[in-house]
């Protein structure tokens, strides 16, 4: 199994895009996140659905005590009416500038180890010229394993 067989090509997030555009690209490619590139096209961060929801809707203190939350979180709940407001926001404030990456020639086992090391389900494949190639997700690896077995 080679990395190129489990990789998904996606679009990238750029300055000026909205959260809505970022979400759409993630859902179209069925990936949790896409890379964020600067003006020169270099990958400098990532845009993820989970990170965006966490920063926009979930207070840190709610995360800390998530195990204690009952059925009715009261005023902590972000109502559905606010969802469109979030989607129209620029995605720049939700970018995380830590990028877990891997080069195209690495083994799939290396990819899994890196995911474990960075506590993530996906990695960006970036070549030696610092060009973005695609995303490797843990689900794609599992899917490929099932295909091989068949």
């Amino acid at each position, binding site marked *: 199994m080679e990395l190129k067989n489990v990789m998904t090509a996606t679009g990238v997030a750029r300055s000026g895009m909205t959260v809505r555009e970022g979400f759409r690209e993630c859902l179209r490619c069925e990936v949790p996140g896409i890379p964020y590139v600067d003006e020169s096209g270099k990958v400098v961060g990532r845009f993820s659905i989970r990170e965006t929801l966490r920063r926009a809707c979930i*207070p*840190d*203190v*709610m995360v*800390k*005590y998530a*195990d*204690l*939350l*009952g*059925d*009715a*979180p*009261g*005023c*902590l709940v972000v109502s559905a009416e606010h969802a469109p407001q979030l989607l129209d926001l620029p995605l720049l404030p939700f970018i995380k500038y830590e990028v877990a990456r891997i080069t195209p020639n690495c083994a799939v086992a290396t990819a899994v180890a890196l995911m474990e090391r960075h506590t993530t389900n996906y990695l960006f494949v970036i070549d030696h010229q610092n060009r973005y190639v695609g995303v490797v997700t843990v689900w794609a690896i599992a899917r490929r394993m099932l295909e091989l077995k068949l």
Partner: protein
Amino acid sequence: MGDRQAHARAEALKSGMLEQTSTTLTGPMIVSGLILVVAYALIFAEVMHRMHAAIIGAVAMVGIGLYGGFYTQEQAIQAIDANTMLLLAGMMMMVALLRHTGGFEYLAIRIAKRTASRPRHLLLSLALVVSVISMFLDNVTTVIIFAPLTVLICRMVGLNPMPYLMTEAMMSNIGGIATLVGDPPNIMIGSAAGIDFNRFLVHMGPMVAIIWCATVILILARFRRELATPATFTGVVGLDETRAITDPRGLKRGLAGMAVIIALFFVHHHLHIYPSFATFIGLALVLFLSRPDPDTLLKNVEWTVLLFFAALFVIVGGVENSGLLALIGHSLASVASDPDLLLISCLLLMWVAALLSAIIDNIPFTVTMIPIVLSLETSGVNVTPMWWALALGVGLGGNGSHIGATANIICVSESERCGIPGSRITPGLWLRHGFPIMLAGLVVASLLFTLFFGFLS
């Protein structure tokens, strides 16, 4: 200096076995005083971590003391009050054992569910619980646990967390004054003065209770606008306390250990054991029952705090050995030894201690004042009321500014982190509310001190 050493020194001086104190400034006094001032300046200026500054100062003091012939390495080691150090370490380990069990969170949620429908009742309940816990456990840990939960509860029910956070910080400071073990300064004072747990509680407890009530009344008055029920108020705390306790057995064992410790505190004087030994008896019981991982347990001991204290003791020990603190004490003795002026001296000490503690760390101040008060004792001054005045001053002073106590800094950080408009505790806000509350506490303390001066003497 341990209480045994302090009393031995006092007896030796009285019997003339030690040299009389120099009445003029000597070279060692000047040098040791300079090292003290520079070390304290580094600590208060926060150009580096206070532990680093204290250790550098301690090394300089011992080095120069050895060269100057006024401070030996043995004296430096003896200057470290082992009772204080071990008591702090023991209690830190007990708190570490209790903290992960979820017991504190359970308590906070239960209280919130009972009282959240009325904002003022919620404030009173949290203030009371935090104060009582702070009487036996470290203020900082108490606030570290309660502050984020308070923010969560306030957000859930639609309240502004600001007055609750400020109240918790101030009440933990006040609660800690009531007992021998409630505050590091109290531990040091009790150790140096030979004051046992019961005596401390009997003398400070009633005063602290009255100051507590007066402070709460003032807080309710000053924050009446913030405590009014807002339009978004739901009064419903959507937390499940049954999920809070993650280690029921550990909690029972930890509470059993704490019960043993507190029971031993009440009788330690009769058993002729140090409070630190009492703490380790309870700790040993919990270690036997729970067998926690040592690395995990020791990771939760604040070694930076312990080393900071040890280094301070060494620094002040050097200054004491040079004779400078005794010189200061003797120069004050002429005033303090007059029975008519003793009350005023005590009140002055209380107020100076409080005002200084509002702006600088009260630990270095306490460590420095202890030998001065002990030297007053060797001059024949009745220093018993001075110990109470010092404890009250350094304790109440912590409420005066946002940096007056570590508990304040934690609550300020939580208020900034919660990101709710109008809930951020700025330095100006603390000064507007906390400083008058501190002053009111000091006025009440001064009145009570004057009223019961005979009992306190």
